[in-house]
């Protein structure tokens, strides 16, 4: 990548080149490089594990997406939209019908009435909602509080926004919020708290008491809350509560969600952010420069999906609870310490009884010797050491697959 640098390299100049002939002028001698912000972010653990899994023919209970497909009525709506010619740019912040459907669903779920035109923004998945929220509302140097373990893109996007991360670790067995510790990290530079409930990877759901405590803290210190609620319909042991619905909270909360988990269509990339107009404005600005618009036919289909009757959601929960039972019983019988998971389609377990030195070593062993994939949770912590005893399994797979995986573990996993 070296270009021709003249032998006489002058000191860095302020003024630009002034004559046509001086083509071999100075250049700063830095080699071309990618940004500093990327130093921490290499290929994700998911990609690595998936490649290893394919090589060994392992059953993949690592990836957080279903091996079964979404409901026909939603797919047909997308097909109809394509045939009806809905293939050009949608309005940047969402197709009106979808914005309305999102607002209607939110009202059913939380009782809050929001303006679909001013308070709902459609994004390419919840991942983009998170990125747009950070970039639109966080300034370099702002402190943001995060709970570990956390979905791995949070750290990356916070870093892209130049935020300083203050991390609170949730610990087994119940991963409850250490409220006093949380209070102690709030400073005058704290801008926001980023939370995820139901929680990936632990399956923990924030309780009313915990939400009340977070709410008081936010109101007292004038903080924002960014709440990732993609698994809200996979709530098994208790009801999901949106923090935006607590008194004094809507005006300072961005609630994020998506179609993918609820309707088993993770590849469609339809997500949204709900927030009061002044916060929505920031989210929309960033969004319009990240992706400009979201896939049009899928938005039409999403509007249909979100108007599904309650029976759809009940059946979804029943199906997932049956899957969860298969996995949890299996994991227990094999000898893992299984931590209670109230929501999401994840379960976190302690693997140490099998004698491997850490979570990554255990996952590699599990793939190669047993033929099952789990995700090492150390990647979900700022300090990987904190996660080394835990691995995450997912049960968003059909029952046959789950039973086969359990069988393999029963046969081949041995305690040391």
């Amino acid at each position, binding site marked *: *990548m070296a*270009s*021709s640098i003249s032998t006489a390299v002058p000191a*860095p100049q*302020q003024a*630009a*080149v*002034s004559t*046509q002939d001086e083509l*071999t002028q100075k*250049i700063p001698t830095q080699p*071309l490089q*990618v*940004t*500093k*912000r*990327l130093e921490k*972010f290499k*290929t994700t653990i998911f990609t690595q594990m998936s490649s290893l899994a394919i090589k060994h023919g392992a059953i993949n209970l690592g990836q957080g997406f279903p*091996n079964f*497909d979404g409901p026909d009525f939603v*797919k047909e709506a*997308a*097909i109809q939209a*394509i045939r009806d*010619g809905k*293939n*050009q*740019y949608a309005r940047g912040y969402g197709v009106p019908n979808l914005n309305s459907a999102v607002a209607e669903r939110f009202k059913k779920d939380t009782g809050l009435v929001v303006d679909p035109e001013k308070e709902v923004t459609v994004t*390419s998945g919840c*991942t*983009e909602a998170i*990125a747009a929220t950070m*970039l*639109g*509302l966080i300034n*370099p140097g702002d402190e943001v509080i995060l709970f570990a373990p956390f979905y791995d*893109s949070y750290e990356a*996007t916070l870093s*892209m926004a*130049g935020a300083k991360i203050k991390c609170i670790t949730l610990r087994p067995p119940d991963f409850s919020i250490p409220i006093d510790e949380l209070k102690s990290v709030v400073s005058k530079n704290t801008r926001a708290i980023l939370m995820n409930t139901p929680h990936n990877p632990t399956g923990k759901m924030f309780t009313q008491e915990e939400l009340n405590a977070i709410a008081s803290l936010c109101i007292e210190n004038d903080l924002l809350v960014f709440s990732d609620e993609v698994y809200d319909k996979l709530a098994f042991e208790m009801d999901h509560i949106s923090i935006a619905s607590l008194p004094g909270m809507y005006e300072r909360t961005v609630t994020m969600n998506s179609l993918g988990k609820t309707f*088993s269509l993770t*590849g469609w*990339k339809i997500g949204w952010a709900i927030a009061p107009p*002044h*916060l929505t*404005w*920031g989210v929309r*600005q*960033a969004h*319009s*420069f*990240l*992706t*400009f*618009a*979201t*896939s*049009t036919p*899928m938005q039409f289909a999403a509007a249909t999906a979100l108007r599904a009757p309650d029976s759809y959601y009940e059946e979804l929960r029943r199906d997932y609870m049956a899957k969860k039972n298969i996995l949890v019983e299996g994991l227990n019988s094999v000898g893992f310490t299984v931590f209670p998971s109230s929501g999401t389609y994840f379960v976190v377990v302690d693997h140490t009884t099998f004698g491997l030195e850490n979570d990554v070593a255990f996952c590699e062993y599990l793939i190669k010797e047993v033929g099952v994939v789990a995700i090492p949770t150390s990647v979900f912590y700022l300090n990987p050491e904190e996660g080394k005893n835990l691995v995450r399994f997912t049960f968003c797979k059909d029952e046959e697959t789950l039973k086969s995986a359990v069988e393999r573990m029963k046969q081949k996993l041995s305690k040391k």
Partner: protein
Amino acid sequence: MAEMEKLSLVAKALTPSPIQQLSYLAQRYNAINLAEGFPDFPAPPHIKNAAVSAINSDFNQYRHVQGICDHVARKMKEMHGLDVDPLTDIVICCGQSEAFAATMFAIVDQGDEVIIFDPSYETYETCIRLAGGVPVHVALEPPNWTLNLDKLKKSFTVKTKAIVLNSPHNPTGKVFTKDELEIIAGACQTWNILAITDEVYEHITFDKESHISLASLPEMQKRTIVTSSLSKTFSVTGWRIGWAIAPAWIASAVRNIHIRITDSAPAPFQEAALTALSSPPAYFDSLRSDYESKRDCAVNMLAEVGFKMQFKPKGSFFVFAPLPENCTLSDVEFVEELIKQAGVVAVPGCGFFHTTLCEENSSPAALSYQRRYIRFAFCKSEDTLAAASRKLSKLVDDGRGIK
């Protein structure tokens, strides 16, 4: 206001576009829309069928369709003679929009300067700012939007990290020539900077003009990130399938950012992209010839209304028309009148120009041309263009014209 304090500095600096107001006006007058840069005719049936088939075949979970990379690599070889490794050098993104944004985040650090040619599509500047960079605008010179080497050289400083090149060009329809590309390439090498290209109109060129990718010039592939998409070539702007092509060390950085911004482009449309990208040469030939006749129609239509079409677009689906000399209205005022009197809407050019240019003479007089251009889109059906033509002719026949 306390609420505004919650926004980031970048978000606060952005203002709503004046185009919004014109949209409302256009709706009220039921105006024919020659403003929006997307087709009003259907996407090709074989591609839509491929998408439908993908949805029915359960291609609906997160995926990366490697076949897209294979096709894109093949096309780069066919069109530009470039050897691109489909396994490492290509990143599939949610449209060229996301490819560009991810690239900016991958290569722009706080304070890095990035050169953009003026006029330009407004998104480039904002992406650069979002990533902490400083946009530096270099004016192309009317009436033919020529590249001035002096102006270009004056824009480089120790902080220059990269240059953005959009060709074929929105809004002017200019296609950068080989000579111009050589100048830009020379500057990139001299100053050891990266180049990011936006080539979304790569298949829409006229008068036997070929699109040349900057990356295909000697020594440029290793420092260029090419971005493009399905959108304009296949009339599916709403599908959000695009890509970035770069040497592996940059592509992997762009990929890592993309994964954190959206993680995956819509799966069924990735699958349909395989069909699109396998379209035979005849598809591209007829795309070009269809758009060429639309261009001719648009240029004629505007000439009849009194525009002096000195510069005809050689690519893209836009005409950037200068207001007639005797017209005393500004571009925005003209567009308002066009909506009210002729029922046709276009985009005032001011949104594409920047007044802080990197050169000595930035006086209001020298910059007056920035309020004298209107952008018309001709990515419209023959019926739409014919209707627009009729309405504009009527304006002339009625003896009104727009003053």
